[in-house]
């Protein structure tokens, strides 16, 4: 089943009759060719009709979601977000039209709408068209908008070029947003990002400000040379969480010096089987 159809089913199961009827009428109008102006008004009226309570999907529904669109995780979606993406998706299957509409809607969007449009990124036709739109969302000063792109959204890892991807990761740390909900984080680590993150850690240390232990997750595979000094510093002067993060990160390094450093401090790290869960714990415990 297609993701848009799933959205329709999930909404129908949750909305009271009047709201469900309003939405179905809107979907019909969208499918039969709606004027831009009417579409914009319709989408802006969504929160007044369907409300903003969480969609609260069951495990089975979430599984159906990721089966229909790999990587899609609407766990945090609300009713208005699902309805807005559903309406927008029903209005066209032409990527060029969608991209133009999305630009127009985002230029006039309020916060709730922006979150919906960006969460919908993995569902729009002709996915390569929205990379600049996603990068614009990452530049937002509104954290909720940034996280709509960055968290539990497979789009960035699939479509962003390396500079935009690296900005996403660095900005997450910059605004105090956790890294572990970023889809595809490990697969898109790269030496440039590792260098940027080390520079950022040095800036924070110079200002006597804390550094998120999660940062080292993206540095580990490239730990070598002077970067090993940073890890040594973590082992010697870091908090318990930072030491744990350093050990987890160095496990992925290939440099022999990194292996020696890890051996030296292995006793601090314990032996954790699941590093993914451990990184998640460090994100929530660290700050």
């Amino acid at each position, binding site marked *: 089943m297609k993701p848009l159809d799933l959205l329709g089913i999930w909404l129908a199961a949750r909305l009271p009759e009047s709201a469900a009827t309003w939405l179905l009428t809107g979907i019909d109008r969208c499918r039969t060719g709606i004027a831009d*102006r009417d579409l*914009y*008004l319709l989408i*802006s*009226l969504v*929160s*007044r009709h369907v409300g*903003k309570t969480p969609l609260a999907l069951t495990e089975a529904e979430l599984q159906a979601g990721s089966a229909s669109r790999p990587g899609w995780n609407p766990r945090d979606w609300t009713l208005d977000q699902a309805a807005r993406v559903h309406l927008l998706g029903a209005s066209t299957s032409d990527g060029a039209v969608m991209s133009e509409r999305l630009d127009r809607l985002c*230029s*006039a*969007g*309020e*916060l*709730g*709408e*922006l*979150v919906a449009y960006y969460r919908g990124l993995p569902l729009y036709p002709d996915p390569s068209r929205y990379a600049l739109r996603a990068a614009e969302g990452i530049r937002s*000063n*509104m*954290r*909720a908008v940034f*996280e709509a792109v960055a968290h539990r959204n497979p789009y960035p890892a699939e479509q962003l070029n390396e500079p935009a991807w690296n900005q996403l990761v660095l900005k997450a740390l910059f605004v105090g947003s956790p890294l572990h909900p970023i889809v595809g984080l490990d697969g898109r680590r790269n030496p440039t990002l590792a260098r940027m993150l080390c520079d950022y850690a040095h800036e924070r240390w110079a200002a006597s400000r804390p550094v998120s232990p999660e940062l080292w997750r993206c540095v580990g595979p490239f730990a070598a040379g002077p970067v090993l000094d940073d890890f040594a510093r973590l082992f010697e002067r870091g908090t318990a969480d930072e030491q744990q993060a350093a050990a987890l990160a160095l496990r992925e390094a290939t440099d022999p010096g990194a292996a020696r450093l890890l051996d030296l401090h292995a006793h601090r790290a314990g032996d954790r089987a699941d590093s993914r869960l451990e990184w998640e714990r460090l994100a929530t415990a660290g700050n």
Partner: protein
Amino acid sequence: MRFIDPHIHMSARTTDDYERMAAAGIVAVIEPAFWLGQPRTQVGTFLDYLSSLVGWERFRAAQFGICHYCTIGLNSKEANNEALAEQVMDVLPLYLGKEGVVAVGEIGYDDQTAAEDKYYRAQLQLALDLGMLVQVHTPHRDKKRGTSRSMDVAIEMGLDPGSVVIDHNNEETVQEVLDRGFWAAFTLYPETKMGSERFVEIARRYGSTHIFIDSSADWGKSDPLAVPKTARLMLERGIPPADVEATCYANALAAFGQSGQIKEEHWLSGKPRDERLLYQGNSVLRGQQPRVGDLPVIPERDEPPVIK
């Protein structure tokens, strides 16, 4: 005591203002769309301005613990550029249905020209079509006649007076506004529109039914603490606390609350109005019980000696 400032142009104000407003007990503001001191020449600048009212400014206010709402419309001054006004009328439906938009506003008359009349009527029709409230700006010049005319046209167009707020009243206009069943708002403005002392006398004479006050603070000389300062003076001069609460909080909420877009629970729940805002500011005043009768605290400017 907590306050609502139902007419203030926060886009023109600083973060210091937000901090002092929150400290003085202001929990919610309504920002009407208006002009920017000099006329706009492009529809694009209108779009960006309206987008900021529903987007960035609301987010910014929340950072200071203040709930932000707005009214959307074409103001009377800029209605006189008809070529531009036509384009603005076309884009208003993009914004009117958005979350937190409590009314069509501020619209009405300035010079009372034919063009102003045309777009005032067109926007009243939009309000009727969308079932929305209206916030009316009454003119500075020829005020009494302009105020009467604003109400005449609203009634002629079929609006219920109870869904229309007539703003910037004075001693000469208030009686007719109340007699005809409209909401009467007063702008407390240094030197020009209305001072706190004059309003105390109005409150004494007209009571607190269908009356409320605002600051209309903008980019000109104006005071974003006008509402709490006037409340303080009213209490000191013996106006009953219930009347102060009505004119500085409850009546504005009752009037604009008819839109369903502004609700007391937004600031009383002890949570941010929208959890997606990931609110990270001070928590003064949220979740407190109202203490009717207390004198509002008017913060002095307090400069920290160093940047931390």
